[in-house]
């Protein structure tokens, strides 16, 4: 039983690799759905498994056993395994809840500020312009959806590129990408391996918005040059980033530009199938977690004398 509960804790470590493969093999909008649903399911299974481990440990304590109306001792593997596992699970769960609450609090506050300031500014259509020397632009979901752009960003782009930028941000708002980002954030706080998946989900959201904008304007090159120009403009301003960061890796921006400039290709069915390895991993994890929890519930019933062993 306890072995089954360990699977949902181990399987998420496969998610980063499989997630990148999913994004590589599927259309970005589809990949975004698959990635986010998988991350949430993996996170849920992980939390359920940790919860069951914590309860197992608690029911080993006489006080809690009495509280749980156990008439027989709970049948578990050796105490030398169960008790440390339960203690570790308690620590991990507490830490997760703490970082999640802190992050939720911070982000809600930042979002509210952005929203109030944007609502206070007169708007032309859905555009809210902020006077600032830093080139920056983002989609601000809410009622109504807004696009926030700084004057420096507007000035570093030509008029067609500005339209490309607006099309990209409107695609974020229309597709409700902020829900996906929030789900990714939630999952990232449940298991450390899902942090890498959060980065993949963010990248998938950007790619999906790029593709939607490219379809709307009918010009992939235009979107690519707009992204490149905006990124290079942002880079010209002094950065606080340490220079010893690895230089060989390619960040998300060049990857997006490269994807837009590359000719569109259709993949053979066999390579597309491997995109769903992440789904297989998720289903395994959820099944193991569910079986483990059901088994744990059965053992508790037995210990309560309500079911035959």
């Amino acid at each position: 039983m306890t072995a089954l509960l360990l699977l949902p804790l181990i399987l998420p470590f496969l998610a980063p690799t499989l997630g990148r493969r999913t994004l590589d093999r599927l259309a970005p909008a589809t990949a975004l759905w698959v990635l986010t649903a998988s991350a949430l399911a993996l996170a849920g299974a992980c939390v359920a498994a940790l919860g069951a481990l914590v309860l197992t440990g608690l029911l080993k304590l006489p006080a809690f056993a009495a509280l749980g109306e156990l008439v027989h001792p709970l049948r578990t593997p050796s105490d030398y395994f169960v008790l440390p596992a339960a203690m570790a699970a308690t620590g991990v769960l507490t830490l997760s809840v703490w970082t999640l609450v802190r992050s939720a609090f911070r982000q809600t506050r930042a979002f509210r500020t952005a929203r109030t300031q944007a609502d206070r500014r007169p708007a032309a259509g859905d555009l809210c312009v902020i006077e600032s020397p830093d080139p920056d632009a983002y989609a601000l979901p809410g009622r109504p959806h807004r696009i926030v752009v700084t004057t420096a960003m507007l000035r570093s782009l030509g008029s067609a590129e500005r339209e490309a930028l607006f099309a990209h941000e409107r695609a974020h708002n229309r597709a409700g990408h902020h829900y996906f980002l929030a789900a990714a954030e939630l999952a990232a706080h449940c298991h450390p391996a899902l942090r890498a998946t959060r980065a993949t989900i963010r990248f998938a959201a950007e790619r999906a918005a790029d593709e939607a904008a490219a379809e709307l304007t009918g010009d992939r090159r235009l979107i690519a040059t707009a992204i490149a120009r905006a990124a290079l403009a942002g880079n010209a301003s002094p950065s606080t980033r340490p220079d010893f960061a690895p230089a060989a890796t390619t960040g998300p921006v060049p990857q997006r530009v490269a994807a837009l400039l590359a000719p569109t290709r259709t993949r053979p069915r066999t390579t597309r199938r491997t995109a769903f390895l992440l789904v297989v991993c998720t289903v395994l994890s959820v099944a193991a977690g569910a079986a483990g929890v059901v088994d744990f519930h059965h053992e508790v019933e037995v210990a309560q004398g309500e079911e035959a062993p």
Partner: protein
Amino acid sequence: MKDARDERRPAGELEAAVMAALWAAGAPLTPGRVQAELGSGLARTTVATILTRLHEKGVVDRERQGRGYAYFPVQDAPGLTARRMHTELDRDTDRETVLARFVAQLSPGDEQHLRRLLEGDD
């Protein structure tokens, strides 16, 4: 790529496009200049109508220029909104979690890579 299509776009998107052109110019623009800046299939009269609407909303101001008006964006108390928003959003090093930003920070290798991509495409 676009021509007649621009005339059929939602009014909000057209207003945003005109407003962006005014901000990017940094100097008062006549409807004719705005039309030229946009480089799209919008008629001059359509641009003039949008500018009048923006003026009624109090988003842009105008001054006499020759026989018509030149329009410019209404500024807020210098950069106040920008400062408020940036201090709040910059507080987290990981800013992208709240909002989907157009471009992420480039890593040192990215800049060369980007320039190579754009050159290779030309």
